[in-house]
């Protein structure tokens, strides 16, 4: 496998091994220099290529069992604990506000029996994984990028390599896998919190809990939850991968760490919404509701 070599990080991450981090991951020098359109396009394509290589190498590392269970559990614990509070707040309040508007309209136009089901359907298929993903990107994705970025600028990543320890195996793979595992759990928590939040505001606006839950039971299916979990798995993978990539691409000390962290959040959120559109189309095209 051959990577396009560029300055800066090229030197630090030079490699042709299938288990290594793409050489060009770290170099963003062209992005700040006001270069032409084609160079910018080339940079984007290169970034996409690097992401694909990193994703593939991470996958191979995971499949070969190259991850220490202790590292994986530590990351799962950190990601879960970090993101849980944000997910609880975001999804409960979103569910509550969503129901506030829906229940008012429902009571006015006489379709109260659809409120719970409509909200649950939306949460299972869309809001649960998307809001959970955004929360994960904002909290854990940023933390991953900042941690790895800090390790890069303080030469801790070089120290790993100098000790013949693969940064991919020690840093990237456990975080990507942990995000992939924890994201569906966060999506389920998002669903539950969203439904509870919306049930309370629905009740305050005249939709009784029995009507609410009966509507959920009638209108939603297991496939809706399954679709949400598929999305969550993809989002988790993208968040873990993107955050690690941004962390590894850090340059220039504390300022660089800040920029990498910001880039990570932006990139993760953008990827979540792009992937959401694609997956939604695929899932509805293969038997979804």
């Amino acid at each position, binding site marked *: 496998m051959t990577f396009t070599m560029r300055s800066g990080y090229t030197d630090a991450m030079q490699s042709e*091994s299938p288990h*290594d981090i793409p050489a060009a991951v770290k170099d963003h020098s062209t992005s700040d220099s006001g270069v032409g359109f084609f160079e910018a396009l080339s940079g984007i394509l290169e970034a996409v290529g690097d992401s694909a290589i990193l994703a593939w190498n991470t996958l191979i590392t995971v499949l070969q069992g190259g991850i220490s269970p202790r590292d994986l559990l530590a990351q799962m614990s950190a990601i879960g604990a970090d993101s849980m509070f944000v997910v609880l707040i975001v999804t409960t309040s979103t569910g509550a506000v969503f129901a506030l508007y829906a229940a008012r309209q429902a009571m006015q136009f006489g379709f109260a029996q659809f409120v719970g089901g409509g909200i649950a359907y939306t949460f299972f298929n869309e809001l649960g994984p998307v809001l959970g993903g955004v929360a994960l990107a904002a909290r854990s994705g940023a933390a991953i990028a900042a941690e790895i970025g800090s390790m890069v600028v303080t030469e*801790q990543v070089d120290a790993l390599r100098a*000790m013949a320890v693969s940064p991919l195996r020690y840093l990237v793979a456990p975080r990507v896998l942990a995000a992939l595992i924890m994201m569906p759990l966060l999506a389920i928590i998002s669903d539950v919190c969203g439904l509870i939040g919306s049930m309370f505001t629905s009740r305050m606006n005249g939709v009784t809990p029995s009507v609410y839950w009966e509507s959920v039971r009638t209108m939603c299916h297991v496939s809706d939850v399954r679709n949400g979990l598929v999305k969550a798995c993809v989002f988790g993978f993208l968040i873990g991968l993107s955050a690690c990539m941004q962390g590894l691409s850090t340059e220039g000390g504390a300022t660089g760490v800040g920029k990498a962290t910001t880039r990570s959040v932006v990139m993760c959120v953008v990827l979540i919404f792009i992937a959401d559109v694609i997956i939604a189309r695929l899932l509805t095209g293969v038997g979804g509701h």
Partner: protein
Amino acid sequence: MSAIQVKDLIYEVPGKRILDHINLEINAGEIVSIMGQSGSGKTSLLKMLTGLRAATSGSILIDGVDIVGLSERELDKVRLKTGLVFQYAALFDSLNVYDNIVFGVTRHKVSSGARPGRAQLDQMVSELLAEVELPGMEERMPSQLSGGQQKRIGLARALAMKPEFVFYDEPTSGLDPITARTIDDLIITTRDRNQVTSVVVSHDLASIFRISDRIAMLDQGRVVFYGTPEEARLSKVDMVQRFIASELPGAAH
């Protein structure tokens, strides 16, 4: 045969040649210092010797293996014979001193299927901390250590892998003279106790003259002098004279 041989090494970045036809031979057990002004290319050379940066052309033979052009996985086999002490120690700040020191050992033993027992690790850490004169520091976090202590723990971490080669990046920079002297003594003691070949990158001339068997002077990416400290004092090479005159006024001739 030399333990380390650098032949016609060139390193270029777009628009600039950083290292220009570097040739060096370092014998087993020697302490060789690479000195030069900031930007002379000495850190680049050190990173190439440790495989952390890819050369443009030339060869670097470490224990007979040419590391230029090797894949990361192939480089890892060579890196198991080397230890690198970073300028700012590069200790893993989420791990305490004990875990920093055993990190490499446990990773490689785990992957090879032979996990060392806790008692073995305890003994190893205790011995290494005694060697770097920081006994009882096992539970400290890197943030609780001074710069000099961090460098010594960095050395202990490097020695835990039982390297045949130890590379030091600016080991005395930013340290007070007494601590710098302690680090110098440790570099010599480490060589004597463990029979390691040492390469020290530094611009601390007092330290270089104290510890080195041979000195290489880099100027604008080229080796302009390579010889013993005594030969350096008598050298007619302009850059060497200027360096010595500026750093060791009493030693200028």
